[in-house]
């Protein structure tokens, strides 16, 4: 069974939903406290949404120095899958595991609404179960989700198929190129602003978000050095 570490920072608040979504997809998911230095043989790592350390200084800026982040960094550098959702995305950018940064929403409002996103690539551990180009509804809930990156980085993201999700229609935060999620050059680290764990169960209406977690499980079955 795939072992999935859900990291909890002080101020994480989507940890339970994320754990549940991972378990429903078939993972042996468990919490790891931010002060821990070990991921307990995790196959994949999930950084949930929330407001780690109250977003003090900048969202994710303090969390990236938590003891557990050294282990997350090592896991990522070894090619292990890492997904940051919302605040988790902010932490990954601050940690330098993903390019770019997330700034205050262009309209200064906290954006809490369902949005439609398009899956721009199925070539990541967290989108492999989607058809490329598929769209789905998923909630966003953030005050600082405006993705920005220097022009040369942006060109690379677009040219190298590193944009993972893009807002279709309404862009809730003014992100550049309507970007809602990106991956690193090695394609094992993914950050997304929307909350798939909140749209992962037919009970709450939308359930396409479950595919993010099913992707993680499916990818785990592909042997190392597999075709993708």
């Amino acid at each position: 069974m795939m072992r999935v570490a859900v990291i909890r920072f002080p101020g994480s608040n989507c940890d339970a939903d994320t754990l549940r979504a991972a378990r429903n997809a078939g993972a042996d998911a468990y919490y790891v406290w931010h002060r821990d230095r070990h991921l307990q043989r995790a196959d994949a790592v999930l950084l949930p949404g929330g407001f780690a350390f109250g977003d003090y200084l900048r969202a994710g800026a303090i969390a990236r120095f938590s003891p557990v982040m050294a282990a997350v960094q090592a896991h990522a550098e070894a090619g292990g899958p890492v997904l940051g959702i919302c605040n988790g995305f902010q932490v990954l950018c601050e940690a330098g595991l993903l390019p770019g940064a997330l700034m205050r929403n262009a309209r200064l409002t906290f954006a809490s609404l369902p949005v439609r996103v398009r899956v721009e690539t199925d070539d990541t551990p967290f989108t492999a179960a989607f058809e490329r180009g598929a769209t789905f509804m998923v909630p966003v809930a953030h005050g600082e989700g405006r993705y920005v990156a220097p022009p040369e980085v942006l060109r690379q993201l677009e040219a190298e198929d590193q944009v993972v999700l893009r807002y279709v229609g309404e862009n809730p935060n003014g992100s550049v190129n309507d970007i809602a999620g990106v991956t690193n050059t090695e394609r094992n680290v993914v950050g997304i602003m929307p909350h798939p764990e909140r749209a992962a169960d037919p009970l709450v209406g939308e359930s396409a978000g479950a595919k993010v977690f099913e992707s993680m499980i499916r990818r785990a079955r592909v042997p190392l050095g597999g075709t993708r």
Partner: protein
Amino acid sequence: MSPKFAVEVRVMPRRALLDPQGQAVEHALDALGFKGVGGVRVGKALTLELERPDSGQAEDDARSMCERLLANPVTEDFTLSVRPVE
């Protein structure tokens, strides 16, 4: 004991990037009747004290703090000043 230096750090959103907070403040000032106000931007200021042998070392360390934590290299620029504490 090393002398103390007072460090002031100013962190501002990079000029090329949209600063919605600055725009909102600009609109509010206009609404208050302050006409002809432009270029409002909102950043943050941090102050700290450093014990270092000399001001050069204090400045070097303060710069390193800005680069590693206090400012985001993708979105923000910083300036800093260092002065001895009496």
